[in-house]
């Protein structure tokens, strides 16, 4: 079998930074963007050499262009990036190819361009369908924008995903279900539901400190999430991962590859790669990125086991006990306790396959860390 890999490309630019964002993204002028794209393309072609030798020829199964906001790149810029990928790697014809987009930067021209470049999946950052709420968290679109752009996108793409944030001020489970209903009515096939995470040094953090913003408390957040999850599952979507819901056949192959510990190459600043059992991280700022600084970490057997548990338990499938090399999980009293309490579920068909009871997804950190050695 040929070696299969995934590709992630990071576009760090945004029109405006969102209040909750702690990620590596910033606003930039066209010159900066062009300069970055040159560096990026250079990185893609340079690093591809290792994957094109006759012995080790790899083929790309999924491509994901994320950010930041990749949709703010103009047609010329995005074409350059994508063509560099095609020129550097073998890509399956039916490879899943996702691009992240914000409603306000989606245009018919861009949609056409992406389609022509074999993009076949769109992940739209909707976050909320409440105008007041959107404005407060610094999003540039309105409910109307979001719904119109998704409708437009659907003309070109069957596979459209939307992101929602759970925990925003005054947004109850009922509101979220209504958003989901509106999105599903437009034919959205996949919904990612993320809990609002508040990090220090973000605008929303100081807004909360100053009493200007009050997100839902933990109890309300989990209850809202639960309502939304129930609604989506009632609509025949499958919760195939802790925060992702999809109709059958529309699961994000790219993200599943992360959870399954498949190999991937990440290009661009602060992008992560996982090849040959080594995790790599590109430098997080342009200067270091220019000088090709990369942090590498060869995983120890114990750490590999921890990853298998941690990633497996995020997914509906779970993890395979027999794949663990160092951790003797059956001797861990927590494991026994969790199985006894129904927190962990052993698969009926395979006694080695263990998954997390979805009722405890919201407590997964505690559970997973207790399974570490």
């Amino acid at each position: 079998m040929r070696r299969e890999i995934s590709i992630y490309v990071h576009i760090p630019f945004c029109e405006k930074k969102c209040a909750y964002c702690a990620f590596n993204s910033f606003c930039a002028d066209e010159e900066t963007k062009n300069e970055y794209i040159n560096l990026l393309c250079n990185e893609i072609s340079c690093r591809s050499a290792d994957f094109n030798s006759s012995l080790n020829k790899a083929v790309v199964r999924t491509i994901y262009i994320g950010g930041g906001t990749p949709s703010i790149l103009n047609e010329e810029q995005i074409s350059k990036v994508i063509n560099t990928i095609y020129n550097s790697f073998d890509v399956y014809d039916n490879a899943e190819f996702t691009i992240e987009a914000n409603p306000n930067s989606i245009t018919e021209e861009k949609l056409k361009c992406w389609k022509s470049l074999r993009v076949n999946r769109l992940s739209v950052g909707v976050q909320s369908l409440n105008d007041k709420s959107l404005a407060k968290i610094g999003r540039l679109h309105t409910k109307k924008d979001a719904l119109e752009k998704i409708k437009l996108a659907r003309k070109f793409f069957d596979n459209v995903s939307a992101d929602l944030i759970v925990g925003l001020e005054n947004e109850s489970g009922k509101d979220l279900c209504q958003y989901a209903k509106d999105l599903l009515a437009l034919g959205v096939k996949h919904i990612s539901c993320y809990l609002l995470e508040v990090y220090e040094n973000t605008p929303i953090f100081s807004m909360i400190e100053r009493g200007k913003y009050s997100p839902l408390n933990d109890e309300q957040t989990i209850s809202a999430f639960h309502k939304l999850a129930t609604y989506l599952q009632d609509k025949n979507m499958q919760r195939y991962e802790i925060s992702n819901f999809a109709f059958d056949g529309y699961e994000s192959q790219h993200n599943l590859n992360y959870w399954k510990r498949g190999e991937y190459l990440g290009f661009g600043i602060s992008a992560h790669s996982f090849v040959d059992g080594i995790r790599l991280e590109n430098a997080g700022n342009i200067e270091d990125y220019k000088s090709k600084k990369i942090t590498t970490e060869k995983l120890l057997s114990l750490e590999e086991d921890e990853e298998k548990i941690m990633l497996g338990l995020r997914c509906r499938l779970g993890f395979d006990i027999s794949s663990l090399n160092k951790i003797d999980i059956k001797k861990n009293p927590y494991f026994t306790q969790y199985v006894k309490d129904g927190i962990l579920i052993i698969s009926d068909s395979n006694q080695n396959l263990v998954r997390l009871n979805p009722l405890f997804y919201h407590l997964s950190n505690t559970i997973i860390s207790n399974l570490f050695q």
Partner: protein
Amino acid sequence: MKDLSHIRNFCIIAHIDHGKSTLADRLIEMTGTVSKRDMQDQILDSMELEREKGITIKLAPTRLVYEYKGEEYTLNLIDTPGHVDFTYEVSRSLVACEGAILLVDASQGVEAQTLANTFLALDNNLDIIPVINKIDLPSARVEDVKAEIEDVIGLDAHDCPCVSAKEGINIDQVLKAIIEKIPAPKGDDSKPLKCLIFDSHYDNFKGAVCLIRVIDGQVKKGDHILMMQTGKTFEVTEVGIFVPTTKEIPLLSAGDVGYVVASIKTIADVKVGDTMTSAENPVKEALPGYKEVQPVVFCGIFTVDGAKYNELKDSLEKLKLNDASLQFSPENSTALGFGFRCGFLGLLHLEIIIERLEREFDLDIITTAPSVSYNVYKTNGEMLEISNPSNLPPQVEIDRIEEPIVRTSILTPPEYVGAIMELCQDKRGIFKDMQYLDKKRVELSYILPLGEIIYDFFDSLKSRTKGYASFDYEFEGFQRAELVKVDLLLNGEKCDALSLIVHKDKAYTRGRELTERLKKIIPRQLFEVPIQACIGNKVIARETISAMRKDVLAKCYGGDITRKRKLLEKQKEGKKRMRKIGSVEIPSEAFMSILKLDEDK
């Protein structure tokens, strides 16, 4: 025959914090025993902990040489601990002396241990020189304190030295008084060897070191000695004195204070209070010796990391080498695993041992709530000594339980008498006596259960009297009491390490306080966790810890798996101080929480 008229053996006794160690420092400095360059505060307190807490734990001797009226005198000083837990150390050093300096703080005046120590000294026929210290303080009331000493203790204080040890004022008067008022030792160095072993410690190179006072005869390297109580003989390899570090000298003879090393491999062969004599020519009669000290406070000691049981064992054994009063035996707890039940002289002693285990041996310790030892009489006539509440037999097998009681003496300014009486009442005390020692000082005598004293008596006394009252106690005996065992159930499972024995009238209050406190200390778990306090099968208090709300990392930015893994690893690391009872995780602090119930009020 050796001239003993130029030797003085004395100790300093005082209430804690009245300045013993500082006075000792000045005497050492004044006599040039230690050069200025090597001098440091509390020089006789060699333990780091002693210096830090400003207390003396072990007694420490030193030899001072002082010229007075053209003649040279050898003054052997033995520094003693001031805290009530270590009274036995004081009494040991008293036997080695002819006189004592009774140090009294010029603003605090006579306190409970001033009295207790004075009586100890009088019991040992010592000549007592009162010395008033801290006269430099603005709050000093020298004349009042002199009057107190005369009225309360009955010692003549009209011309006693009034000093400031801190500022070095009038220290020469103390030296003068020692020489003039304390009698020289009596003894005959031509008689067969007879020494009192008043302390011992273990040295990794030399073996057991015996601290001795030579009564008669002499001892030198090469001599064969006999320990009269153990019957063991040894060959002396070194004799010497403390200056205050050890200094080898050729010979120790009648009247001297010093040390003997004799290749003694185990400290158990050196019984403090034993008489050391010559193996070839032994004396017929041994010295009276000491009462063996009995621990009064017990608790379970465990390591946070259960795998360190053996390290804990080794560490306790090492501490025991220099602390004969420390007792321990293996114990197994379902909640805490393998550990030791340890006996201590008091709470301070307990606290010091725990701190030394943590500091000197780098162990993370969990202790269970301190308990006393109860005499439990079973219906079948058997009597058990129970210091671990979880070992208490079932109620039906118990005929009666007796608890240790102590006679306490509390000295206080009159305005706090009401508050103290209320406290003692609350602690099930029986009033014995009240005496006005003078206008400003009342002595209250109560019989109190020791179990109540170790619980929080000292802290309560301090807070109710703004620190003005002092107290001292001595063991009185055992007394029948209506005691019950309160068990703690977490999620329906009994946590043996949290069981306690309390008086039945207090069981409900304590049960309620304890469940409330545990609710605060135990973090939320995956499930709702009921906490119940029970007597037998009867639930007397209940609290519920609600389930954890949210603990999840939902997002995974661009495949950054490492960050996620590291966060979870850190979370795991933070759990190392947790103990698991069934499905409930308890932080190690919870086990000590029983002790601190009153803090929240």
